[in-house]
């Protein structure tokens, strides 16, 4: 009855197989051929998986080689002081003068001013009404009564929303496509948190969409940042901040947004 570390024990008592070294050496020697055969002959999904695995292995190998190369570099790094000094009138070429610094500062300030009104995704593809709305035909007179629409994209619906009577409800926003939370990234802190949505500020495609609360890429939403403990310029705790949606929620099943700061 084998008990506990019986394999190690057996090795200790009887030693390794007589041809152990030979076998390991041969196995190692065979490895390259084996890889080559796999790379050539695997098909389909297995080939994909194999290629991916091999790719990552190769990256690791390259990194290791690079590290070795860096380690093996001989001689001192390039000196700061050049061996042949440059005359003073040529020094300006390398280092910008103070005047130049000033002008670039102004330029950057202007850019910054513009940046205040710029958003991470400045331009998005428009969404046509045909794409967004699906016609619902109601009643017996099928051809005539096509006045009702279903919104096919994710929407935000406020907490106190109640549906209108069927007769007056022109737009239906399906329950399955309503979102309440968004994964918001703070661009400078590089953290992502899930925050509740307060409202839709602007949908760039169409003011009607803003009204309906359609969430598409590029939409500006207001999120509740009270959990982050952010402070406004005047020192008050900010709780509503704008964020821009950066993904296609209808394709991903979640909302990703960047906080506008």
């Amino acid at each position: 009855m084998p008990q506990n570390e019986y394999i190690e024990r057996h090795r200790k008592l009887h030693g390794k197989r007589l041809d152990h070294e030979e076998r390991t050496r041969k196995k190692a020697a065979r490895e390259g051929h084996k890889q080559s055969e796999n790379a050539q002959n695997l098909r389909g999904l297995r080939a994909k998986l194999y290629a991916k695995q091999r790719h990552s292995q190769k990256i690791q190998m390259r990194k290791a080689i690079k590290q070795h190369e860096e380690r093996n570099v001989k001689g001192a790094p390039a000196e700061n002081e050049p061996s042949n000094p440059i005359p003073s009138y040529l020094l300006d070429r390398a280092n910008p003068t103070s005047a130049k610094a000033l002008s670039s500062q102004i330029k950057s300030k202007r850019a910054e001013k513009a940046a205040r009104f710029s958003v991470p995704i400045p331009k998005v593809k428009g969404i046509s009404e045909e794409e967004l709305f699906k016609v619902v035909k109601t009643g017996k007179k099928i051809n005539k009564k096509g006045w009702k629409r279903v919104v096919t994209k994710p929407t935000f619906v406020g907490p106190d929303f109640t549906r209108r009577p069927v007769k007056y409800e022109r737009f239906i926003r399906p329950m399955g496509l309503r979102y309440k939370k968004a994964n918001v990234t703070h661009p400078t802190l590089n953290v992502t948190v899930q925050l509740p949505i307060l409202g839709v500020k602007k949908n760039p495609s169409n003011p009607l969409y803003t009204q309906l609360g359609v969430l598409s890429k590029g939409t500006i939403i207001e999120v509740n940042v009270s959990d982050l403990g952010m402070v406004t310029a005047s020192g008050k705790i900010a709780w509503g901040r704008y964020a821009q949606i950066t993904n296609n929620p209808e394709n991903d099943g979640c909302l990703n947004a960047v906080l506008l700061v």
Partner: protein
Amino acid sequence: MTWKDIAPVPTAQEFIDIILSRTQRRLPTQIRAGFKISRIRAFYTRKVKFTQETCSEKFGAIVSSFPILTDQHPFHRDLMNILYDADHFKVALGQVSTAKHLIETISRDYVRLLKYSQSLYQCKQLKRAALGRMATLIKRLKDPLAYLDQVRQHLARLPDINPTTRTLLVAGFPNVGKSSFVSSVTRADTPVEPYAFTTKSLFVGHLDYKYLRYQVIDTPGILDHPLEEMNTIEMQSVTALAHLRAAICFFIDISEQCGYPLKAQINLFKSIKPLFANKMVFIVLNKMDVKKFEDLEPEMQTELNDLAKSDDVELLRASCATQEGVQDVKNHVCERLLAERVSQKLKAGTGSNGNIGSRLTEVMARIHVAQPMGGVTRETFVPEAIKDMKKYDKNDPERRKLARDEEFENGGAGVFSVDLKRDYLLANPEWKYDKIPEIYDGKNVYDYVDPDIDAKLAALEEEEERLEKEGFYKSDSDIGDESEEEVLQKAEYIREKHKLIRNEAKMRKSLKNRAMIPRKSLKKSFSQLEDHLDQLGVDTQEIDLRGRAAVRETRGRSVGARSRTGTVDPDAMEVDAPSARDRLRSQSRPRDRSVMATNRREDGVTDEVMRTKVERQAKLAQRKMNRMARQGEADRHIAAAMPKHLFSGKRTLGKTNSR
């Protein structure tokens, strides 16, 4: 209690590969142009759901395959706690089961979203997102899965310790000869080395004493320090000491060869004494070959004796090196353990008021040996003749003659054949050598041997006589009448006829893919009709004449005096024989103008009511064909010139790969 059959736990990466490739392999992979959106949605929904089901199944299997700590025996529970850290173990399993729930939630969410998707691209993206999130969750399980696999491997290698059976537990300081004791009493191959902590975990061996099996557990050595400072190896010993109801053999090396002073060993015994409560403890003084108990300093001797006396502990002596006293120790301990267990069982089965419980009575009834009442001793009965018989002695010339002797006298084995008939027990000893055939007329004689054959025969004869006297055999009528014979003949005839008809019908019915033609429209020749009527006894003369007349009328022109039998007048004028075609033409005649070609609309339809019915049925039969745009026989159809199934896959030259 073994955990040898827990399935291997794959690593996170393997897990993802398994699950995703399973989804890929098991489900359809192709979407063709023109699939309806509902079908596409169903396609991707199925993918998401299937992946989730696979995950749940695999995770569920992992969680359920590992032992639940609370259900285990306290010994196993504590052992696992020491070896694997119960909290860690629970957390790992908990993480796996949480992941399972999360994956189920993800699947639910994405299936819901898929219902609203509008395009193939959107469906695909949603599926991709769902599988991606599942994979991420699994990736996060990297550490717990690796840990669980390690635990599984270790569990499978744990020795098979039964905590309830008869057990000897060997404990003591390191290097005092515990393992060598175990390996000398049992067949277990416990490693014995001359250094401390050779044994790093529990080992189990088995020994037989008095036809009962005992379990011997070898524990790692314990050092004399507080419980908190003990390491994992020592804690295993402590667990075994604490939870196993066993006879404990505490080994002490009085020669101090192990490197620990005797004082320390005695202290250890004292400090772990709380673990010995309600257990039998034996102190085994080992390595007696090196130093005798008597050679010890007197104060040590007294201390050891005090130890034994104060705690109801026995001192035993052994030497594993010379095997001296080892078997005695074993036998003594086993004996005491057995007695103790039996008395405990008796005590447990007996209630507080002294009556025996139902389970115990059952056992007691089984082991009870009945004795005669009143203390009478019953001797074995031996007949006088046997008592007085002279004892057989091979060398005595007056000895009894055995069959063996007889054989020897008559030429020994192989030559002498035993006379089996000599010892037959028959009514008359003279019959012994009578010859009786075993088989007679191809029958086994013995089957017909009947002891009361005479009585039976007598009874039969008597009955026969009686019957004859009563006139039972007298035939009452000798009327061999002809009417009966006639009836029989007719019956025979009818039977034959039936058979013929049946045969004919059978011939007709085996139509082998030919159309079934109704009897009415079967062609039957006139001769057949004639025969049939003849047989029925109807005069066919008249019918024959009538038929002939009818034929003559419709045949058209008579062909003239043509004789097939060559009776043409040889002197007749030679006439140009009309050609075959001309002859046919001359016989043909136009269709009767007055009769319409059969109106197929009315043909076979009796009246208006019937017609409407027929039309309705025809329409009904056609309806499905029309609606489904089925191919009918009227449709133009060109069969495949080279049917694929007849031409593909037939190899002539080349290999499988080349196709």
